[in-house]
């Protein structure tokens, strides 16, 4: 079998959000992988990665939860595919810490009562599409180019950070989202807030923080002439999509910017049926925009 014909198979860690508030991310990830013949097998009985709250107050707990998940992932062959930016960042950070800190590794191994498995490569879906599958092959798989759609690619915080952990792209000037979007025919805009924080999990504790920060992001994307925003993180999506109407009310503005997950947009281009992209569960209705651009 030649390298180009090699089948791509991954262990898949969806994470908590993708089974609930970000279910369209899960549905569209599976849809894209099915069409592109990328194999995904869900890690059995995975647990929450601990996300930000765990490492915020208890680093050992955070590292142990991620190590437990990495250990469960060993049961499935292939690199570990992760779609959520927060899970991705936590799992990569854990591997990095445990490789470089023997004391912490021993504490974690005591906590999970098993050796910490560090061999599995953790990959974000963007990386799988752009690098493993390949941009040329992705461009060749396009059946409905996203011509005429102006997209603001929003990275947020955790796709490229922390800076000391080897990550999927440059921390200050990443282009991987734009690369993928250009490969499927969309136009990407240059804008100022692609790496700014949306307020993340303050949506629960202090939503006022989220309204202010996310308003600045929406405002910047609108000013740059974007039709929509592209994200790869369930929290960014929640803040920009679910809270958009509230933001419009509080700041007396009108954005109407649909917020797409990367896999929804790629799915649209490579021929995943629109009914399998979870478009109906988005709070800002994307259908008028997609119809206007003849993409449905």
């Amino acid at each position, binding site marked *: 079998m030649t390298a180009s014909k090699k089948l791509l198979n991954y262990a898949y860690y969806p994470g*908590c959000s993708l089974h609930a508030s970000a279910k369209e991310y899960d549905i569209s990830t599976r849809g894209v992988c099915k069409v592109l013949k990328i194999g995904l097998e869900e890690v059995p009985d995975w*647990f929450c990665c601990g996300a930000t709250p765990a490492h915020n107050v*208890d*680093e050992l707990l955070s590292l142990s939860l991620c190590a437990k998940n990495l250990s469960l992932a060993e049961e499935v062959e292939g690199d570990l595919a992760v779609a959520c930016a927060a899970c991705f960042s936590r799992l990569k950070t854990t591997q990095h810490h445990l490789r470089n800190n023997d004391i912490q590794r021993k504490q974690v191994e005591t906590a999970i009562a098993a050796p910490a498995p560090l061999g599995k490569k953790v990959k974000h879906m963007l990386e799988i599409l752009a690098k493993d599958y390949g941009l040329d092959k992705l461009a060749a798989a396009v059946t409905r180019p996203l011509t005429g759609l102006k997209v603001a690619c929003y990275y947020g915080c955790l796709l490229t950070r922390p800076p000391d952990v080897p990550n999927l792209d440059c921390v200050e000037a990443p282009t991987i989202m734009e690369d993928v979007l250009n490969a499927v025919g969309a136009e990407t805009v240059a804008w100022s807030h692609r790496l700014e924080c949306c307020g993340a*999990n303050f949506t629960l504790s202090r939503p006022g923080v989220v309204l202010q920060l996310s308003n600045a992001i929406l405002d910047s994307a609108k000013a740059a002439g974007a039709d929509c925003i592209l994200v790869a993180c369930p929290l960014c999506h929640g803040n920009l999509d679910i809270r958009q109407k509230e933001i419009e009310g509080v700041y007396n503005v009108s954005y109407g910017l649909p917020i797409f997950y990367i896999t929804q947009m790629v799915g649209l281009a490579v021929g995943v049926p629109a009914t399998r992209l979870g478009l109906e*569960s988005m709070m800002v209705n994307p259908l008028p925009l997609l119809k206007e651009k003849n993409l449905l």
Partner: protein
Amino acid sequence: MASFMEHPPNRVVRLLQLGQWERVLAGRSIWYCASCETCATRCPNKVNLAAIMDALRKLSWDADGPSKESFVQLANRLFIDNIRTYGRQYELRLGAVFNVKSGQFMKDLLLGPKLLSRGKLKMFHSKNKNVGEIENIFARIEEMRKKGEAP
């Protein structure tokens, strides 16, 4: 996030250098950090403030600290409790218990039905089958701490 802090990130570092860590721990700043890592990414002196913030929060957390910011602490506590009980996040419970415990019964009340009807919030949560393993991890960490073997 710096605009929400009474001590912005550079002043937090300066206060620590001057040994005034009690002022930092008593303030809101450590709880108004979203762990966006922008500071650690851009600091010209390579100060890893994001890691320092984690360490400060743990200090305050362990001491049941005199912080002015209880809502963020409450949200963290409920999030971690959910992991221990269910193995995964149960977003509906997270939001509902937060509202009750923070006394904000009306918070996001109109959002709930919209999210439920879109399947973005689930009424019932399927418990992870091996949730006992998570309890073991919590218990072993507590054990290590009792013996002084872990921070």
